[in-house]
């Protein structure tokens, strides 16, 4: 069997992402971030609901690096610490996060149709959100 090489992106969209994968991809979707920044962004954005820890973060980072969804950026923008790495979304990663967002959107639509998110009396306001 052949092992996918590091540069070869894994086809995105086939597999549902885990919540953490999704959050990490979202976090760097609007700009490169280093590990600590990702932790902070995710924590702030989720209102401390998702307790992302360093070990878990890097397990996910490693996995997605292998899949070719994210890449380390060359150089250190502020030059402060050469060990610090920034992560950037690759086109494959962008595909993956988009596919996941769509999948979730579809799911939420189904949830609305089935009135899971509220009573029958006020279904509409939720949809606009």
């Amino acid at each position, binding site marked *: *069997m052949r*092992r*996918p090489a590091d540069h070869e992106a*894994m086809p995105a969209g*086939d*597999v549902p992402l885990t919540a953490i994968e999704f959050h990490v991809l979202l976090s760097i979707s609007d700009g490169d971030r*280093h*590990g*600590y920044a990702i*932790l902070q962004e995710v924590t702030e954005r989720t209102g401390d609901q998702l*307790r992302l*820890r*360093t*070990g*878990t*973060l*890097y*397990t996910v*980072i*490693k*996995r997605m*690096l*292998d*899949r070719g969804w994210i890449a380390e950026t060359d150089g250190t923008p502020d030059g402060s*610490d050469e*060990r*610090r*790495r920034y992560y950037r979304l690759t086109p494959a990663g962008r595909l993956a996060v988009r596919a996941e967002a769509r999948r979730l959107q579809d799911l939420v639509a189904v949830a609305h149709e089935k009135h899971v998110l509220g009573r029958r009396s006020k279904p509409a306001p939720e949809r606009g959100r």
Partner: protein
Amino acid sequence: MKRPIAAAAAIRLYALITRLYPAAFRERCGRDMLRTFEELAPRATAGRLAAELFDAIRCVRTSRRPDPATRQTRTTAAREHVLVAMAQDARYALRRLRTQPALVGFTILTLGFAIAASASLFSIVDAVLLRPSPFSEADRLVNAMSVTPRGGISPGLSAIKLKQWRNETSVFEAVEAYVATTALATGGPEPEEVRAAEISPGLLRTLGVAPRLGRLFHDDDAPAGQNQVVIVSEHYWRTRLGEASDVIGRAITLNGQPHTVLGVMPKRFHFPTLREELWLPLNPGAGRGSAFTLVRLREGLTIEAARARIAAITARLAAEQPTPGGWAIALDSHAFDGPDEKTRSAVLVLFGAVGLVLLVAGANVANLLLTRAIDRHREFSIRLMLGASRARLVRELLIEGLALGVAAGSLGLLAAHWSVGTLVRLAPDDLLLATTTDIGVDGRVIAFGFALSIATAVLCNLPPAFRTMRAPGRDAISGRTRTAATTPAQRRFRSALVMCEIALAVVLLVGAALMMRSFARLNAIDIGFNPDRVVVMTIGMDTERYGTEEARFALLRGIAADVRQLPGIEEVAIASGAPPAPGSLSFGAIETPAGPCGADETGIVSNLVSPSYFRVLGIAIPDGRPLRADDPPDAVVVSQSIARRCGVESLTGSRLRLGPNAAWLSVVGTAADVRTMGLTSDGGEMAIYLAWNAGTAPFPNFATMLPRRVAPRRVLFRAASPASHIDEIKRVIWRHDAGQPVLSAVPATELMADTIRRERFLLTLMTLFSSVALALASAGIFGVLAYAVAQRANEIGIRVALGASSAHVIRLVVGHGLAVASAGVAAGIAAALAFSRVLAGLLYEVEPRDPLVFVTMSLLVFGVALAASWIPTLRALKVDPATSLRVD
């Protein structure tokens, strides 16, 4: 302040944890992950730090798993950490072991027993033989002996020699003296005689031991207050002084004088023999003739070099200051290196025997596992063909062996933990006293047990793998089943294993049988008296208060008269000795008016007895009569051995003396020989029974070997149930003199049996070991035959179909069994012949190559082999020819 410290510690810990991640992970993310944590840590709460650390540990596992999004398992698995793979193997191996509970159970039990036996004995070997001497640099400690001007060697040095040699610092670092003695201890619940040693003040320091409590002697303890201070053994402190921590400075009464306790020696400190409980200071100059001498050689001086220097100094001293005794001394090289030869060889023989049991068990287990491996041959072959690596299969087998070994080791060590106590109870005293540590399952024994167990199990589990490795596949998927699964070579190997088991069992059986025969011989010895229903009470008479034999006799006669009055007592006698303790042993040349008997001096046991002594012990007097109360002091009864030494059957009516200057004695009776020194020791037969009032006059060179403060005297009585009278009689004795220690009160049968305790210990264990070996060997025969029958069922069926009779079939199976047994017995006999010599020193009147033993044991093994063949034969007879024809 706290926060940064916690953070720094957490960072360090985190760095350690990151090392556990797979290499690929560390290469790619390791540094950055740590960097991120370093950024986070100083700002995090303690709870967060802990959560981070746990998370990092948890992710070690996650990071090793293949990406769930990919479906490639095999190649990723190959890249996994080797430990993870091994954990998987272990799970697999254990699961497989669980599917064969009977086989696994039998393996663990067999090995477990062997390990229990080995570990128990190792605990003894370790304590008795392997532990280093408790004395520091014991190789430089030697006994010094005096060399007389005529070249003879006598133990101990005179005070003059001692003083002189103490100055020769070019040879000796220290010269110390000691004398064994006893002390009469009063003030406890019972007065008692205690073994003690008088030692020069520096001796304990020279040995290099430290007291457990208090201090050792100082040089000024000896001259200032001779015998007024004492150091006690740990045992004495524990049993007599109530383990009191404030015992130092307390006074105990010894020989009627208060002695201040200066120190308590550590547990299992023994000097000079194993039984001393007290140490008193010795003043070498104080009127003592000579004392045993212990020297410590100068550092770096070999014993040969020391001898050379001693020779030179002796010559110089002889020229400078000649003395009639000369200055020569000799060094005894083997003074302090452990237990005596017999104890050592008994322990080693047992350890060897246990080693053989282990080998038998190992062969048995190997055989069992081999059976299993043959069945697994197909599985392994298929796996090899499907791409499993050989290393992986070997690893599995190793892990299986490891698991079996650990299980058997745990079981065995647990059993050893329980059985060591029993072993210690059975063991002879001199063996236990020779130990410097407690006997028990300690760390060393546990390490030994597990090492042995795991090594055995792993080794036994490996050989099966080799064939599979060599020739994978060939017949794996050919559809042929068990018939093809074993090669002739494999069958031969299994038979060879069983043959070895039988051979080893034969060696053990021969050893046990020799000991059994020796033991039977010992028990059949005509001891010359009847110990049944007799109790021997030993009373230690204070030689200061009862200075003369008359005084002692007066007291004892009074006691005997009162004891005689007690209801139930049939007969009472008093004596200075009773077997197995002779009265006194002295060396002399026997003379009759016709001339000297024999050329040399001989050891003669002399016993002061009351006339009833012969009746109580039932000693026959074939010619003449026992002593009578009205006999003159020179009347004696002699043993037949003495008469024979003088060339006659009876000396009754004749006269005899012990040496040219001694007084003549009139022999009134010639008594049967009695084993006065116990069952195993010869030389006690030359006995002279003297009347109480004879004193020591007949012995010109009568020398007390042990200067004792207490003279042992015996009160013997016969009664229907003698043991029930002991307390009563003690009270009678103390009514006469409250200060009289009763040293012991033991049935005479036990006293004699105790003299062969070592032999009984050896016999018990050897019998146990050889029975187990025989049982295992027979299980081995059974296993091999049963398997062979199962394998050859087709062949047997075809033979039967072609007209073979039952007799043929029986011959086929039993013949196989007997062939294996014969080969095993032949090898076993050869080995036993070679090894039985090591038993020679432990046997009594039995030749190590006793033909009867060899023949009976061979027959026994053949009988067992036949019995083990029985069930497989029955199975062979039941083979249905039709079935076998249909299968092929």
